[in-house]
C-alpha cells in the first residue's frame, strides 16, 4: 500500500518537425529530425506510506499531472524508479471511456470495469450507482441525451465505488459546483478513514490543507519541498525559496525607480481614466505589500500578517498629513480607514519616506482584493494624491469559512440549568 518514488526524471522529446506518417519518415530519411528535450520532472524523491494522504501542488506546468501519470503507469519514467505496492485507482479524469451512444447502465458497466471493479461488484452495485447519481429514471437513456452535469454525476458515483489501496486524483474537483465538491470531500473523508493511500493533485489549497498530511511542492519540475502541508503551502504562497531582495536592502533605489514609474504611469492614467488625482504636493510614489517574512508579495494566507508600505515624496513641508486606505472585493467597498481615525499622527513630512499600514491577522478570505491609497491634509480639505484601486493582492483561505472576510467568533454550548 505504499508508493516509493526514487530519483525520478522525465524528459519529453519534442520533434522540431512532426512526422506522422511512414511517407514523411521515408522522405526525411537523409534529413534526420531534430529533437528538443523538455525535462518536466527532475529528480523527484518521496515515499507515501500506507494511509498517507498526500497533496501535490505547484503552478501550471510544474509537472504535477505528469508525475501522477507516471505513478499510474500511463507514462514511463526516463530515469529513476517507481515502486507501487497495491491496487491503484487513478482518477485523472472522470468518465474515461464513456460513450455517448451507450445507455446509462451500459456505460456504468464499461466504466466500472475500466476503473477496476470486478464483474460481481458491478452487478451488486449497479443499482446503487444509478440511484446515487439520481438517474434511476434514465437507466435506459443514451448518455448523449443527458446533461453534462448528469454525466459527471454518473461518472463520479461510479468512480467512488472502487476500493483501491492507492488512489490517484487529479483536479477532479475543478469541474463541479459547490455541492459536487462537498460530495467529493465526503468521499475523500471516507477513503481517508479507510486508510487508502492517496495522492491528490490540486490547485485548491484549501482542500489540500484539509485533507493532506503531507504535501509535495513542485516548481518547474523540481521538488521544492516535501513536508507537513501547512509548511509547504506557506512556502508556496510566500515563495520563501526565491531570493527576493529584501526591501530594506535596496529601498532607496527601489523607491526612486518606482517613483519614476508611478509618475509616468500616473500621467497616462489621469488622461485616460480617473485612477489618480490630487495636487501632487505630497505624492504617493509606491505601494508594496509585505508578507510575514517582510518580503514583497502579492499572495497571502488569511489570518497571517500583512503590511502595506506606502512610499511618499513630499515636495514641501506638510504637517500631519492623513493617509487613507480602502479595501475592495470586486466592486464591494469592504473597509476603509485613515491614520487619523486610528489616532496616529504622522507628524511633519518633507522629502521621501514611507509609512506602514499593519494588519496583524488578515481577516479577508478567498479572492483578489483591490486597494485604494490616498493622502490629504489634516482637515481632509486638500487632496494631495489619490490612487484609486491601483493595487491588488490575492488571499488564500485555509479554513472552510465562506464569504469575503472572517469575523472573530466561536460557538458556545448551552449552559446547564
Amino acid at each position: 500500500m505504499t508508493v516509493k518514488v526514487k530519483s525520478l526524471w522525465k524528459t519529453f522529446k519534442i520533434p522540431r518537425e512532426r512526422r506522422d506518417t511512414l511517407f514523411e519518415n521515408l522522405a526525411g530519411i537523409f534529413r534526420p529530425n531534430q529533437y528538443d528535450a523538455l525535462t518536466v520532472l527532475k529528480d523527484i524523491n518521496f515515499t507515501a506510506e500506507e494511509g498517507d494522504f498526500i497533496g501535490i501542488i505547484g503552478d501550471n506546468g510544474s509537472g504535477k499531472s505528469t508525475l501522477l501519470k507516471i505513478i499510474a503507469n500511463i507514462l514511463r519514467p526516463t530515469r529513476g524508479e517507481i515502486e507501487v505496492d497495491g491496487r491503484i485507482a487513478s482518477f485523472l479524469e472522470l468518465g474515461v471511456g464513456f460513450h455517448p451512444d451507450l445507455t446509462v447502465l451500459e456505460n456504468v458497466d464499461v466504466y466500472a470495469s475500466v476503473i477496476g471493479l470486478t464483474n460481481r461488484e458491478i452487478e451488486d452495485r449497479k443499482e446503487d450507482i444509478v440511484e446515487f447519481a439520481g438517474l434511476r429514471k434514465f437507466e435506459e437513456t443514451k448518455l448523449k441525451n443527458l446533461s453534462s452535469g448528469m454525466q459527471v454525476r454518473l461518472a463520479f458515483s461510479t468512480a467512488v465505488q472502487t476500493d483501491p489501496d492507492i488512489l490517484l486524483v487529479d483536479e477532479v474537483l475543478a469541474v463541479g459546483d459547490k455541492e459536487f465538491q462537498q460530495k467529493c470531500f465526503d468521499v475523500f473523508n471516507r477513503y481517508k478513514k479507510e486508510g487508502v493511500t492517496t495522492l491528490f493533485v490540486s490547485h485548491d489549497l484549501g482542500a489540500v490543507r484539509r485533507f493532506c498530511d503531507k504535501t509535495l511542492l513542485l516548481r518547474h519540475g523540481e521538488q521544492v519541498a516535501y513536508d507537513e502541508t501547512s509548511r509547504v503551502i506557506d512556502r508556496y504562497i510566500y515563495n520563501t525559496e526565491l531570493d527576493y531582495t529584501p526591501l530594506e536592502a535596496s529601498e532607496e533605489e527601489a523607491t526612486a525607480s518606482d517613483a519614476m514609474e508611478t509618475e509616468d504611469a500616473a500621467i497616462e492614467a489621469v488622461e485616460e481614466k480617473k485612477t489618480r488625482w490630487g495636487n501632487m504636493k505630497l505624492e504617493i510614489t509606491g505601494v508594496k505589500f509585505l508578507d510575514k517574512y517582510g518580503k514583497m508579495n502579492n499572495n497571502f494566507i488569511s489570518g497571517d500578517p500583512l503590511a502595506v508600505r506606502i512610499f511618499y515624496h513630499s515636495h514641501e513641508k506638510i504637517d500631519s498629513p492623513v493617509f487613507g486606505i480602502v479595501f475592495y472585493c470586486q466592486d464591494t467597498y469592504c473597509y476603509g480607514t485613515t491614520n487619523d481615525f486610528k489616532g496616529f499622527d504622522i507628524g511633519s513630512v518633507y522629502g521621501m519616506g514611507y509609512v506602514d499600514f499593519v494588519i496583524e491577522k488578515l481577516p479577508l478570505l478567498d479572492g483578489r482584493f483591490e486597494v485604494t491609497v490616498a493622502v490629504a491634509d489634516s482637515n481632509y480639505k486638500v487632496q494631495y494624491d489619490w490612487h484609486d484601486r491601483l493595487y491588488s493582492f490575492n488571499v488564500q483561505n485555509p479554513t472552510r469559512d465562506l464569504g469575503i472576510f472572517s469575523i472573530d467568533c466561536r460557538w458556545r454550548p448551552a449552559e446547564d440549568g
Partner: protein
Amino acid sequence: MITPEHLRELWGYRSLIVKIAWSDFKLRYKNSVLGFFWTLLEPLLMLLVLYVVFSHLMRVQVEHYQLFLLLGIVLWNFLARGTTMGIFGIIGKPSLVQKVYFPRDVLIISACFTALMMTLLELAVFAVFMIIFKVAPGLTILYSPLIFILLFLIVFGLATGLSALNVYFRDVQFIWNVVLQAGFFATPILYPVTIFPEHLQKIVMLNPIARIISMLRDCILYNTAPQAGDLIYVVIWAGMAVLAGYLIFDRLEPRFAEEI
C-alpha cells in the same frame, strides 16, 4: 511479451476485454435489430454480385460454388475486419490510453473479439445457407474450430503489430487497406486454386490465409480432413505472427500515451 506473468495480468482484465468488445459490437449495430440485418446484408449482396460474375460470366466450375464463395468471403472479412479494427484499437481510444492504466493489448484483443462476434453472425447465416442448399457437413467439421483459432491468432498478431505502428505512422492504415485489397484477389476466395498451373499453385499456397480458407472449405463443405503438413505450416505462421506482433508492440508501447 507473452510471458506467463503478462498472461496472468491479462486474465485479470478478462471482463474488461469482453466488455469493451461487447459494447463496440453493440455500437456497430447501433443497438438496433435492423442494424444487424443491414450489416449482414453487406456480405450477402457482395456474394450475390460475385456469384453472378464468377459462376456465369467467368464460368468457375466448383461444387457448391455459392457456399464455397460465401465461406471464403466470410473468412476473408474476418481477417480484414479484425486487422482494420485492431489498427484503430489504440488510436481510436485516446482517452483510455492517456487517462487510465491497463495492459494496452487489452484493446487489441477486444477489437479482435468484436470482429469475431461479427463473423460468428455471418457464419450463422452461412449455416442457414448450408441448410437451404442441403449440404450436410461430415465429421471433419470438427477440425474447423481448431483451424479457425489459428486464423484468429494470425489476425491478432497482425493487428497487434499494425496497431502499434499506426500510432507512430498514421498512414499504415491506408497502406494496409491496399494490401488487403490486393490480398483479396491474390487469395483463392473467388476461384479455386486449381485454376493456376501446378507451379503457381505452390506459390499461391504459401499464403497461410489461402491454406486456412482451403482447409476450412475442405472440412466443412467437402468432408475432407486437413493435411498434417498444412496444419503445421499454419501453426508456425500463427506463432510467428503473434511473436512478431508482440515484438513490435512491446517496443513501441511505452510511448503510446505521449504519441497518440
